[in-house]
């Protein structure tokens, strides 16, 4: 019962961090919010395992530590380094205003909570919130992806989507082989690494990283 409410609290915090991400105006803070969210998510497999009140298996521990090392330390470090060395202007530049995008995000959350309960799953989820929170996180990530101008916020949006998929993966924690999960994490790392390099080079070549201008043939 106790660990159940801790899990619920962690999942709600994850949703609130999504909304905080939509509301922040600083790129560096966006990255830190992502790191915080990932830390919470990395703790979830351990909490879910403890709920069964048996000894910790290798599988959740591997997932938790792999996710923590990658998404809490390495990826934020890479992104913050790009921010620092790329001499990027540190503001977010949204296409939808901050308040509007936060309200839009909360509408998404409400819709996901309303629908999350009605979906039929092959396995009984450990927490009722798990499915709703995962859907809300994926959709909020998509919102960040489409509504922000800068290349680096798109990377962050992509990472948020991945966090949502990670939550969904927790539903099937016992069925998925550990290799698959670690493979996903590795893919993620490579993707962010490449995107970091690309963002850096966009900045070097064009003096900005506004993705709206990528479809123009030459720089005017």
């Amino acid at each position, binding site marked *: 019962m106790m660990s159940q409410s801790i899990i619920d609290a962690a999942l709600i915090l994850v949703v*609130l961090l999504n909304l905080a991400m939509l*509301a922040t105006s600083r790129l560096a803070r966006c990255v830190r919010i992502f790191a915080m969210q990932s830390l919470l998510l990395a703790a979830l497999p351990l909490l879910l395992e403890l709920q069964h009140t048996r000894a910790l298996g290798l599988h959740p521990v591997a997932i938790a530590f792999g996710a923590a090392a990658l998404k809490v330390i390495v990826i934020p470090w890479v992104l913050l380094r790009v921010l620092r060395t790329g001499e990027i202007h540190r503001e977010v530049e949204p296409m939808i205003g901050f308040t509007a995008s936060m*309200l839009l995000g909360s509408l998404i959350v*409400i819709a996901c*909570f*309303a629908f999350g309960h009605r979906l039929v799953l092959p396995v009984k989820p450990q927490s009722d919130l798990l499915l*709703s929170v995962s859907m809300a996180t994926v959709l909020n990530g998509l919102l960040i992806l489409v509504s922000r101008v800068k290349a680096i916020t798109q990377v962050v949006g992509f990472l948020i989507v991945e966090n949502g998929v990670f939550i969904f993966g927790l539903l099937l924690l016992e069925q998925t082989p550990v290799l698959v999960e670690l493979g996903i994490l590795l893919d993620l790392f490579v993707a962010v690494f490449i995107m970091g390099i690309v963002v850096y080079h966009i900045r070097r070549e064009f003096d900005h990283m506004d993705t709206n201008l990528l479809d123009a043939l030459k720089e005017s």
Partner: protein
Amino acid sequence: MSILRAVLAVPEAIVLLALPPLLLSVIAKTKAKFSGRVGPPWLQPYFDLYKLIQKTPVYSRTTTWVFRTGPIVNLAALLTAATLIPVLSSDSLLGFSGDIILVAYLFALGRMFTVLAAMDTGSSFEGMGASREVTFGTMSEPALFLSFVVLAVATKSLQLSQMMGSGLAAEWQVAAPALVLVVGALLIVLLAETCRVPVDDPATHLELTMIHEVMALDHSGPEFAVITYAAALKFVLLGSILLHTAIPHPPSLYFLGPMLRMVELAALACLVGIIESMTARLRLNRVPMLLAGATVLSSIAVVLVLTGRMA
């Protein structure tokens, strides 16, 4: 209402009427502590009120009766609300089913008359303050209402004194995450409605940055005393809504409950003082963000409570 309750209401009402200025000085003392000063004496707000009451009010020739009734209607609305909101003990004096709506509209009535009185002066500064007050008011009201909805759904009651206090204690076992969100939302509403720091700075005297103080610029003498007192009373009322939600007392405490509540109110004033000392005032165009944040917190709490009921 039993006779015992009526008798007990007298000392409670006296304390409730005497308490608000003291909380102002708790906030002032906390802020002074943080900046390494001694701060004004504990009874300074009472001295100020006494001084103001003795003065002769000055009226501008452009003002009408609206200007004079504004502060009085505001205070009367808040005093009426004080009989419906559980402040020290966890049952209110005149509570009835559905009184949350009356309370919300009493707050709105008080605000409306403050705003009208400000606009009545014809000063552009006060018009600006009135415009801001109304803008931020419309944004904090949904947060307050949605928080009430959460409490109403959780306790299945529409009476403030049953929605909070001992009835809520059992809900903390079941719906803790939603209630924590409600407490967060109510804290933001409290800061916004009583014009404390992240939203408004009560100490500043630049007309361009103030919200609430700017509306009172033309009031003087006893009317200004009424405004100052009403602001303090509003802090007590919203503060006790917050406290009764956050820390519901079990009914077994009897006489200890109200005492404890007073200590908690002082602690809340301390907390507000700490928040004021540690944060800077938000830029005016970031304030809607904070208030929208409160609305989002309480709306998520509504969803959580509703889905929890259905499951």
